[in-house]
């Protein structure tokens, strides 16, 4: 296997995640796109760790998994709060801070 096939797969997933985070207006779908981005970063870290024969890549991927779990928990709590207050999780309607 060559290193680049993993890196290019991760790049494709990352860019699909970026597209999703920008093009969706349902808050839950934006969080899903962010999960795609975090997973592509994990593939990158593990591939580079295997390439260098170093375990730090895998350990940081584990930390990213833990942080992503915390992020989803908090993110969905915020989405639920928005839904409770506005009866909608359309991000275009959450514009209180717009001047």
């Amino acid at each position, binding site marked *: 296997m060559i290193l680049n096939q993993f890196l290019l797969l991760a790049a494709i997933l990352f860019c699909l995640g970026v597209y999703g985070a920008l*093009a969706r207006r349902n808050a839950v779908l934006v969080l899903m796109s962010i*999960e795609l981005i975090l997973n592509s970063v994990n593939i990158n870290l593990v591939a580079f760790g295997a390439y260098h024969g170093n375990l730090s890549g895998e350990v940081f991927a584990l*930390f990213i998994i833990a942080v992503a779990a915390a992020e989803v928990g908090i993110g969905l709590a915020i989405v639920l709060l928005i839904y409770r207050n506005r009866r909608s999780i359309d991000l275009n309607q959450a514009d209180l801070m717009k001047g």
Partner: protein
Amino acid sequence: MSLVLASVDWNIAQNVFFYIFAIIMVFSAFKVVTTDNIVHAALFLVVVLAGVAAQFILLGAEFLASTQVLVYIGAVVVLFLFGIMLTRAQVGADSELDQPNRWPALLTGSMMFAVLAATLIRTFEDTELPDETVTTTQQVSDTIFSQYIVAFEATSVLLLAALIGAIVIARKD
């Protein structure tokens, strides 16, 4: 195509499985960001996350693959399904999931991919991975509990803070 051909004679089985999983993952990720049914998006996300676990196994990271299945497929996707259920999303097709104007997002994503792909191909070209990349759970835990013990403790505090924070935010009063 020289990228593909250079590695075919090296380890055919791993490459065949890599490309099978990669095609499934890219297709599913594409459906996650384009489908107009929010429950289908969550289920396609399961396929992508399982594919990532398969890539971890191909890279010899067995502990990370099992953690990926447990934490992502077991917990995060269930949280997403709870979120979909509690926000009473429309079941079935819903045309209101996308921004009215998607061209800026498409432009950003494709330009970012062009830059990333050009840089990666020019930098790493046909660099081979080592033949033996398997790491055992014991090696991973030895690294966590020696070199990265401070980061590990900080992660546990972060998880506790996230737990309390989520309860405080979502509580009704």
